């Protein structure tokens, strides 16, 4: 208690240096919360979007299906397993069939994936209702990235060519019946969505699917050899990318924090050197050396308390505002292959704030303690004479 009171008086008496230390540390404090808040907001948005647009509550995969291996697509199809027929009928699972194909926008040839989905599916956010029958034409749905890549707009015709089950080439003009706007590139770039039955017919694979997407409440039952992939598995790539982003931004604000801590360390070293007589006097008045170490350590820790208070003062309105209006992501980050919105709404959780407070207080305490530790070894008579180097 005495130490805290003394610490406040001492560092408030130290003027400019105090202001500098506290400002830099409070800036580091706010930046750490900001960065992590943006990443958390991104993480939450990306998970939510990926679940809503792509993976649902999990997917039941054909045993040969490997989304990263295009050559697997050729064999990764089969009639729906018996065990899940009822769930499909009840709308708990929706089948998706896919194949590699070529499209010919403006006479160029481009590799695409054709994906067949039930126009009435209630699970994914993809506006599949736009795939409903359109008198004889074949409706196709694409995302905004794909539309941009092939310079297509609604109503355009697009020639696609594919091989059916027997390896025979066939071709057809599809009509772009809708362009959807999703933050999830993996259901958009290079993909053309068609009505499931139409695609099954084109491929001569009636009743077949590559994977099924589950709706909330789906309980994975044994449908061997099909395998159920849960959200954790399907979101693992996303988690990895977010983690690596966390690491990268950690280095950045870590540097900022280190600068702030160095300033405190330096202040401590100087202050211990300049205040030798005071240290000697504390000991003469009956403090033990370790109590004096405590005074100086608390003093350094007090910087962090003041920095947090200052950070809260300007950080709260600032971060609150950002959480409300969102943070525009640089357009370069749009092509990362995982979901990222144009604007991210940072999420500043209680745990993040508390954790950052602890980090700042603990690290400031440690860098204050390191130089102060020296006091425990000093000779009080030398300190009183100001003779410590």
């Amino acid at each position, binding site marked *: 208690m*005495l130490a805290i009171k*003394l610490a406040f*008086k*001492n560092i*408030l*008496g130290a003027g400019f240096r105090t202001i500098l230390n506290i400002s830099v540390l409070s800036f580091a404090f706010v930046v750490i919360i900001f960065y992590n808040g943006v990443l958390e907001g991104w993480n939450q948005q990306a998970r939510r979007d990926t679940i809503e647009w792509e993976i649902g509550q999990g997917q039941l995969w054909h045993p040969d299906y490997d989304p990263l291996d295009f050559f697997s697509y050729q064999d990764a199809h089969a009639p729906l397993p018996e065990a899940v027929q009822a769930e499909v009928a009840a709308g708990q699972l929706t089948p998706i069939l896919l194949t590699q194909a070529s499209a010919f926008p403006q006479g160029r040839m481009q590799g695409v994936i054709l994906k067949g989905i039930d126009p009435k599916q209630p699970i994914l956010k993809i506006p599949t209702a736009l795939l409903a029958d359109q008198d004889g034409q074949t409706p196709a749905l694409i995302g905004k990235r794909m539309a941009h890549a092939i310079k297509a707009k609604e109503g355009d015709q697009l020639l696609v060519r594919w091989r059916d089950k027997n390896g025979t080439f066939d071709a057809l003009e599809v009509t772009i019946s809708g362009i959807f706007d999703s933050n999830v590139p993996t259901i958009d770039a290079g993909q053309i969505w068609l009505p499931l039955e139409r695609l099954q017919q084109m491929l001569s694979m009636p009743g077949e699917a590559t994977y099924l997407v589950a709706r909330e409440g789906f309980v994975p039952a044994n449908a061997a050899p099909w395998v159920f992939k849960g959200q954790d598995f399907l979101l693992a790539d996303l988690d990895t990318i977010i983690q690596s982003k966390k690491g990268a931004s950690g280095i950045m604000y870590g540097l900022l924090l280190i600068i702030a801590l160095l300033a405190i360390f330096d202040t401590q070293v100087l202050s211990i050197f300049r205040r030798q*007589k*005071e240290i*000697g*006097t504390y*000991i*003469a*008045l*009956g*403090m*033990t*050396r*370790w*109590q004096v170490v405590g005074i100086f350590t608390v003093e350094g820790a007090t910087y962090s308390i003041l920095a947090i208070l200052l950070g809260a003062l300007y950080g709260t309105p600032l971060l609150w505002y950002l959480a409300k209006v969102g943070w525009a992501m640089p357009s370069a980050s749009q092509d990362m292959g995982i979901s990222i919105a144009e604007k991210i709404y940072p999420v500043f959780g209680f745990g993040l704030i508390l954790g950052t407070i602890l980090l700042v207080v603990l690290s400031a305490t440690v860098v204050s303690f390191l130089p102060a530790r020296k006091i425990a070894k000093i*000779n*009080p*008579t030398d300190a*009183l004479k100001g003779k410590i180097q």
Partner: protein
Amino acid sequence: MESIIQIDQLTKRFPVGAGEFTALKDIRLEFQKGEFTGFVGPSGSGKTTLLNIIGSLDTPTEGEVTVLGQSIAHLTHKQSAKLRNQHLGFIFQTYNLFPVYTVYENVEFALLLQHMPAAERHKAVLDALEWVGLTDKIKSRPDQLSGGEGQRVAIARAMVKRPAIMLADEPTANLDSKNSHHILQTMVRLNQELKTTFLFATHDEKVMGYLRRIISLEDGRVVKDEALAPQGQAGA
């Protein structure tokens, strides 16, 4: 009479470069409760070193120093801190007040260390400031005080816990004649009223005029130990 400090064959050597420097050599002294005594001698004669050892801020190289029944050489850091906190008061040439504290808080400090209850503490601080005549400067900070006032605050800070022994190292060296006499008179009064033992290290003639026992040091040895009676009997 009550003997409160015993020094037997005290020698203090400091390491200097590769060798050693003998700052005190074979000191034998005894002090009674209520003494008003000074160590005098030229600069470098060992006065401060002796005072520091009695104050348990330093330890003997050889010999035995016993203060209030405690052997200085054998105290742990904690024990010596407690001895200083409860029974010893220090006054320095440069006052050594805490610059960020008010006069009141400077004086209060030692009592906070003792965990004295607030009401009792408040009264003790006011009493101490009254002894030195500074009750009107309670809220001032050290840099707002004159030199004489600063040293009086230091006396109040040392006396507030009513220590058995006051150790004053050149307390008048930074003061003019008027202020020197003022604080010496204050200390004489406290010595008489509270029976506090005062030990000075000084080479100031003005201080010597108040002492009732003068111990002369030269090159770390006691060369003279004379009792005087300018203001009544020693140890009265």
